């Protein structure tokens, strides 16, 4: 028996067959039901989305299969609630304590939840992998979620302390851990990308975003007479601001520079974000390995910018539509108020209308984002892959068992979930 699937000959071995229209329909219906069920429908929507993305992604002529179910996600969420209630109750009780424990409870609670969040991310990945079937075999993931959580939290701290410069090393380390413990059947995965390479590719972007901020800090430090400032602050009093200005004549200028530079930094970050995403996604994909199978990504930056441009276009159209509806609603309410017919029932109706409007707007933007940016990133990311060594697919043997959805539930309850 040989590999005779036509898919391998076409392109790099990966195709995406999903219809945008079908995905839009799925998401819009999902958003409506989310609102109607106050969010309980999210487990069904997430399952539908994954089914759509998986089954429309064809590797070597064979579509992936997602076997997870919404009920599994719901159960995972309920288990997560059972675990988190005592944690939240503990934090609440500790906050009532007056001594050091009470003061530390906020920090300790935050740390515990951050840790649990990373734990959940690893466990959720395990769930998704074991629900991914390809050619009659499932993927699976070993390794300890606690070890991963510890490494992830430590790396986040390092990345924060280096203002993001350690990010390539963080991703490399964490991806190595994940991929080293990832298997397709008995075919072991690994991650073969160089952190230094990502650092070099992203360094210019880092300078453009952090540079203006650093400049502002330097200006502040050099223009302000710190001794005088501390004196004024120590004295206190009502006219503190004028005293500060008196002792530091250049403060106003420094503040203007600071605000200008922060503005430049934020603008740069927004404009460069698609480029950054492209660089990371291309670098990350190209590092994926399964046995002899190697991956190379040829993702193009302009396609990613195109996806964001579509998002902006749809978002503007949606905003205009919402604006017109809001104007009409305000007109009606204003008319009702001027006649003086606004009883308690009217107030409740107006509040409800505003609330529903807000929820529709929020869900609308999120739906547009998912249907444009996220779908495009999936499609472009997949279609730009070049796979080599696919003949290894002939001799993989089944191993691994499905895992529980508790990680998904925790991730959902802690707001760290994705797809």
């Amino acid at each position, binding site marked *: *028996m040989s590999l005779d699937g036509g898919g391998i000959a076409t392109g790099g071995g990966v195709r995406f067959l999903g219809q945008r229209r079908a995905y839009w329909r799925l998401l819009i219906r999902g958003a409506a039901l989310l609102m109607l069920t*106050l*969010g309980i429908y999210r487990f069904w929507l997430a399952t539908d989305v994954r089914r759509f993305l998986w089954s429309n992604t064809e590797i070597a002529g064979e579509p992936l*299969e997602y076997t997870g179910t919404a009920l599994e996600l719901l159960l995972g969420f309920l288990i997560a609630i059972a675990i988190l209630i005592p944690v*939240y109750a503990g934090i609440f009780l500790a906050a009532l304590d007056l001594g050091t424990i009470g003061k530390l409870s906020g920090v300790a609670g935050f740390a515990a939840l951050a840790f649990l969040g990373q734990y959940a991310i690893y466990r959720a990945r395990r769930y998704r992998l074991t629900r991914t079937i390809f*050619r*009659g075999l499932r993927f699976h993931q070993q390794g300890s979620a606690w070890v991963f959580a510890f490494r992830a939290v430590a790396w986040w701290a390092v990345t924060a302390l280096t203002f993001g410069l350690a990010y390539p090393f963080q991703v490399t380390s964490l991806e190595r851990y994940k991929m080293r413990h990832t298997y397709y059947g008995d075919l072991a995965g690994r991650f073969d990308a160089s952190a230094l390479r990502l650092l070099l590719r992203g360094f210019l972007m880092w300078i453009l975003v952090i540079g203006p901020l650093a400049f502002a800090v330097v200006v502040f430090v050099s223009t302000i007479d710190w001794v005088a400032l501390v004196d004024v602050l120590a004295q206190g009093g009502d006219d503190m601001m004028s005293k500060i200005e008196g002792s530091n004549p250049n403060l106003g200028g420094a503040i203007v520079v600071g605000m200008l530079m922060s503005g430049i930094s934020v603008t740069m970050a927004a404009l460069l974000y698609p480029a950054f995403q492209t660089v990371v996604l291309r670098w990350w994909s190209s590092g994926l390995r399964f046995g002899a199978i190697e991956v190379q990504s040829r993702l193009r930056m302009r396609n990613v910018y195109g996806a964001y441009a579509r998002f902006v276009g749809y978002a503007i159209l949606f905003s205009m539509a919402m604006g017109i509806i809001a104007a009409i609603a305000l007109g009606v309410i204003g008319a009702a108020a001027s006649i003086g017919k606004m009883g308690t029932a009217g107030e409740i109706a107006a509040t409800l209308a505003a609330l529903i409007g807000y*929820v*529709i707007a929020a869900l609308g933007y999120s739906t547009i984002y998912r249907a444009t940016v996220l779908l495009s990133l999936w499609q472009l990311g997949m279609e730009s892959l070049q796979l080599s060594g696919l003949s290894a697919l002939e001799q*993989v043997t089944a191993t691994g068992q499905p895992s529980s959805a508790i990680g998904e539930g925790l991730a959902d309850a802690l707001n760290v979930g994705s797809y």
Partner: protein
Amino acid sequence: MNVPVASGAAVYFDGVTSARHDVLVVLKPAGLQISSHDGRPLGEWPYGELEELSAPDNLLRLGRLNSTVLERLEISDTDFAAEIDARADLVDRTGTLQRRQRLNVIAWSIGATASLLLVAWFGVPAIAERLTPLLPVAVERRLGNAVDMQIRAMLDPRHSGASFDCGKTETEVPGRAALEKIVRRLEAAAALPLALRTEVVRRDEANAIALPGGQVYVFRGLIDKASNADEVAGVIAHEIGHIAHRDGTKAMLQGAGLSFLFGMLLGDFVGGGAVVIAAKTVLQSSYTREAETSADAYGAGLMNKAGGDARALAVMLDKIGGATEPGMKILMDHPETKARVAAINKLAAAHAPSAFLDPAEWSALKKICGS
């Protein structure tokens, strides 16, 4: 004419290795017979065990129900797929089965939401009501101390510390004694299980607040606005009502209950946060409206019991409330002033009231925060 398709080509994965097999599938009366092109049999799948799995639209992907081995059979010929669909009950390419399941989910979710709102409206206050008396006074005092730290930090943004409290310097001490006289008379009538601590603080609003554990803060603005000591006493009696009913603790329990109900069980979809906050605000203001009404009744009763003039509380409320009337009723945490004044006046005893302070003491109280 439609010729029934009796056999067709398919792709088969045995679930043990990843090898892809091109196979021939024959429709037998009881099930599918799978064999390789050279005639080697690969298995028989009864129609009742066929399960349709997630696949792209142009592909029918079959598995075997409840099987631990991930055997897969994939048919891309639409006519042949339709023949199998017609024979297997669980294969349903039109999606009717799935739609019915979804409708079930949606109906029950809406039911769950309705039940949740009912619990929030009736259940949470009822539970807090029953739970609060079970809390020992020592715990409540501890709670009160924690709240006190936060409240003081909020009320006293300059962190002036001790000088934030009035009645400490030599000129202010007589005012402090006058305040003590009012509080002692009310406290004797109230017979609370815990000791009251009352402070006048340097805030310009005409207001007073009660914390769990017996701490009462009277704002300087209230004393400035009062025209006699009974009006101040009336407001303190109202605040004692909150302490006797343990409203602060109750509110904390209610808040925790609502946060749990809405934050944990619901939410976590985009825009859900706003729904949670709005629901909490509306519900909590309805809880506090009730608490205010019953504290008014308690305050009036306490004034009667202490031999004071309950109407003074109504007069003071009218003075404070007049300015803060506009706004949405469902968001207001206090009931309408007119209704409160009428209710208090109804409760006022007919006896001739004795004043809480003589004129000299009253003018001392007026100077409790300096001139």
